């Protein structure tokens, strides 16, 4: 394995100190009824409790989400209050890049020497998302009311000012996927095969029980303290028995079908970034070390979001001198199957080798925590394969791509 120095050499991710909720599709679980921030904070305590990690080990909280929530102004201090601690911390937001971005910034926090055990907490609730009312004197009504999910998914204001017609739906996410598919001349049948394969990967991983290592069923309470239900599955995952079912689906845009795109969902995910000493102490297997090697971001042409991560990966490889052949595990946050197909085509990479245990296209897309779950799945897979590099990437609103390489060293493994 090629040796590349980590960008933050003092920051380590303790193996196995991670996890989160299942990602139920929006409006299909009790999460639709609760303050998601409080759920996330309590969920973090719950996950760490199951993992045997006392919250008192944390000295900082880095959090991220994208959809407004009650008391968001108070950000991380409110979140740590909600699990009974008083930690300092920041909150960041970068659409679907949020999760990975929080992990990267948490590593920077450790590298800076200011804190030694940084909790990462990401979450979002697309169900019952709030609407905001904004003064906007440039418009006739002088006021804008924005429904955070629907309106933003349907309209990218920067893309919308570059010639695309909002009224015809040209500024939506789906339009981006279709447009990118046309640009890369993707084959509809291949995209269908790819999507079908992704489902089989997920079904297989779920059936094997691998997901239970990091997904924790949680019981949700109402304001009276009564149980209102369980969050114990990625509800909303479609059932496909054959490739023909995919091929028969109506195209919503070029190469975009219902089965080939993600769905809105709710959930939380958490992990830890720490100093070497604390990481070894907290790790569920101290023989395994995990570090961030490098990260990159790229903003592509307006309205071509699905190819942005490909270019982020390209930059990352160029900067590190690594190649895709050096990667043990490759995981993509792919709201569309188109994303994976573009990546595979540009890199001439076999898409069968990606996303071995599932991907957001299948299990849903709650934005904030999505790329943390992707990261955890990638790291677990890399550990399973004996160590090596894990490439993690994904797209985000605003035609942005983000990518990061983590190195997993298992003293008993190959690297």
């Amino acid at each position, binding site marked *: 394995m090629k040796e590349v120095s980590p960008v933050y050499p003092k920051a380590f991710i303790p193996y196995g100190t991670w996890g989160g909720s299942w990602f139920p599709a929006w409006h299909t679980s009790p999460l639709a009824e609760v*303050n998601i921030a409080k*759920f996330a904070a309590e969920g973090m305590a719950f996950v760490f*409790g*199951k993992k045997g990690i006392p919250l008192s080990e944390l000295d900082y909280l880095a959090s991220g989400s994208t959809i407004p929530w009650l008391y968001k102004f108070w950000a991380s201090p409110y979140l740590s209050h909600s699990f009974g601690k*008083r930690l300092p911390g920041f909150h960041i937001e970068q659409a679907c890049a949020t999760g990975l971005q929080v992990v990267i910034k948490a590593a920077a926090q450790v590298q800076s020497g200011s804190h030694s055990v940084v909790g990462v907490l990401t979450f979002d609730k697309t169900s019952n998302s709030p609407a905001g009312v904004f003064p906007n004197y440039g418009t006739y009504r002088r006021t804008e009311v924005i429904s955070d999910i629907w309106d933003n998914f349907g309209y990218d204001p920067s893309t919308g000012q570059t010639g695309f017609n909002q009224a015809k739906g040209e500024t939506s996410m789906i339009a981006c996927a279709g447009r990118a598919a046309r640009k890369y001349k993707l084959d509809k049948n291949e995209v269908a095969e790819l999507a079908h394969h992704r489902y089989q990967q997920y079904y297989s991983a779920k059936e094997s029980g691998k997901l239970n290592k990091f997904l924790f069923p949680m019981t*949700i309470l109402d304001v*009276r303290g009564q149980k209102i239900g369980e969050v114990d599955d990625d509800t909303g995952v479609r059932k496909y028995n054959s490739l023909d079912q995919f091929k028969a689906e109506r195209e919503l845009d070029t190469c975009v079908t219902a089965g080939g795109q993600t769905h809105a969902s709710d959930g939380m995910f958490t992990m830890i970034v720490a100093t070497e000493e604390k990481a070894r102490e907290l790790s569920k297997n101290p023989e395994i070390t995990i570090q961030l090697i490098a990260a990159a971001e790229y903003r592509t042409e307006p309205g071509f979001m699905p190819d942005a991560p490909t270019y982020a990966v390209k930059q990352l490889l160029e900067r590190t001198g690594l190649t895709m052949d050096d990667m043990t595990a490759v995981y993509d946050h792919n709201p569309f199957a188109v994303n994976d197909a573009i990546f595979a085509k540009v890199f001439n990479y076999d898409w069968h080798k990606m996303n071995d245990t599932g991907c957001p296209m299948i299990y849903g897309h709650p934005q904030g925590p999505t790329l943390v779950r992707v990261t955890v799945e990638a790291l677990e897979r890399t550990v399973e394969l004996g160590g090596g590099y894990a490439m993690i990437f994904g797209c985000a609103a605003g035609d942005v791509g983000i990518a990061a390489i983590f190195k997993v060293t298992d003293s008993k493994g190959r690297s």
Partner: protein
Amino acid sequence: MKSMRQSTLQTLGFKPIIDIFKNGRMPFDIDELVDEVFGPAGNRGALVISGGNGIVGSGKAMQLGSRLLPYDIPIITLDLPNAPDGLGQQYSGLKASFGAKTADEIMSNIIRLSYNGASLPKALKGYKPRFLLEAIPEILQLKKSHYEMMRAHFSEIEIRSVTSGFPMKELGVGILHPSFPHQINKIWEVIEEKPSPITHLLLALGLIPIPVSDNWSFVLDVLFCGITLAATRCNQAVNMPYWKIDKYVRRLVGPNPLRAHDVIGPGACFLTWSCLHHLAETYGEVFRPTPELVRRKNSGETWYSSDRPVVDWDMDDEEEFESWVLGPLFQMTSLILHEQRAHLSYMNAIGELCAQFTKGILAFIRNYGADRAIAIVEKYHQKHPAAAQSCWYPDVFAKMDTPEWEQLYVNAEHDGQVGLITISRESLNWDVINELNRAIDWLKREGIDSVIITGDFHLSTQMVGADTTEFFPALSDENKGYKVALNWSKAARRLNDEFKTSVGFINGKRCLGGMMELMMHCHYIIALDSARLGMPEVTLPVVPGMEGCHWAIRKTDPANYGKVFNLLLTGKSVKAKEVEGWLIDFAGSMEDCLKKAWALASGKDSTPKRKLTESAVKLSAGIPDQPPAGNPLMEAGRKAIFDCIKASCAVPLSQAIEVQAKHSAGFMTTKSCQKGVIGGSYKKMMAV
């Protein structure tokens, strides 16, 4: 005179309880004690309560003010001029307890004086202070200066501190440490060289002074602060939120320590921290306050969030939870036992009486057994090695077969002729039943065939019935209900079957339910004429399981059957005097009752025993119609009780015990019982 163990009353300087019966009077005279503490009538000195507007000071002003009202003793409350009005807040409670007229009289006897903390108001001298109850903030130097100032003006004044943790050797004055809530809780932990007239006066006023040794912190505080600390440590270890830990602690031990702190208010965490801090300094890490407690001591933050919790928690590992909660609690208990801080019955009872422990801590540990208790502490030490470094005395658990451990609630004495069994727990449970059996065994071994059974004139001021938490397993398992009813009844029958004469003396405010059934089994029942007696089972609803559905009927004339039915089917209590002759044999004043009980037991009074009908009883006459119960649960209870009466009376006495037990157990598993008071408390306490 012989006894199984020392009675708790003896620790206050009194003789064995059997002497009370022999002498036909209580061992103290309240009028004499009032004269001794406050001076003779017409020249009474004042009770001064400093810090009189605080939670403790104002509560005790109400409690003592109401009890001393007949004696014309001025109650002076002393506080800083800007102290918030704590006394005024007490008025509504006072009115609810005593009515507006008496409440006004009590308040009008409380004289509020202000001072600046450094010099006393001139007016104080005019009230001739005799006794200072100091309830000022927990700052040692402040307290000492306060005593100096008082003594400089009133050299003869008796001073007691309510301190929440300083020992007498630090304060230089005796201690009367009360328990929360201060206006109603009767318990006072007492530290003084020897039992004083003040302490005896508290007892005479119906309060419960408990002598304890002079150590940092008090028995109750070690237990309650200790379990609070254990709960916070558990949170630190496993992340379970405070509200959920609190529920599991309640299920396991009884109290909700964290909720209790929130209810008491912002100062509670300071007091708990203060107690633990001093204990940690003296005894080591098992008492060291957690950072979360220190934080709340400083900030006043509550344990329960105002935001309701969203994620529920389950218990993955009961043993781990036990080790985090019971481990330190058992270790702390080993300390108070090792230091012999008090009579074992006190140490046992105080958690039940003041901190909602389901069982006394020693009875709780006794049920675990020494080996298991020690193993739990050792498991806790594996997780918290620093706690193992000091203050762990496993040897104290090796004495569980001594009478002091075996008879925590029930004691027995005899003078060679007459035996006396005293019960210090207000409700019956398995512990009391087992101890009762051991007490009867002991008396029988000692050749005693006459016995009086009564309360202990100290810790127990009433007999409220059965401890319904013992019925929880029976809600879903009829066999368990049957076992409770049958075995408890068998123990009660021993009072009828194994003694030539048995006298039940109801010496407190009331005797209800299971306790009434226990007393019914005596050949004679005697009660204070002010006592209220009743069978409230129908209101829960449950079917009386200790033969209450047939025993009283078998012991009375058919003309009175209707009265027994009324008692059972309405659940209403009645004054003892009203049931004299058909439910009980005698009602009178304390002295009359003591004399009557002794005379009956010693054979000097030949009043014939009411006959117990051993054959089946015909119930054709005298069964009154009952007005509608008003709710379906009570209606179901009435029907079940009525069925039980008919069935248990229709068979001979020898069979009735099993018939009644079956009826009682059968009803316990019905929806009516599960939806009733017992089912409700089960859900609240156990269905976490």
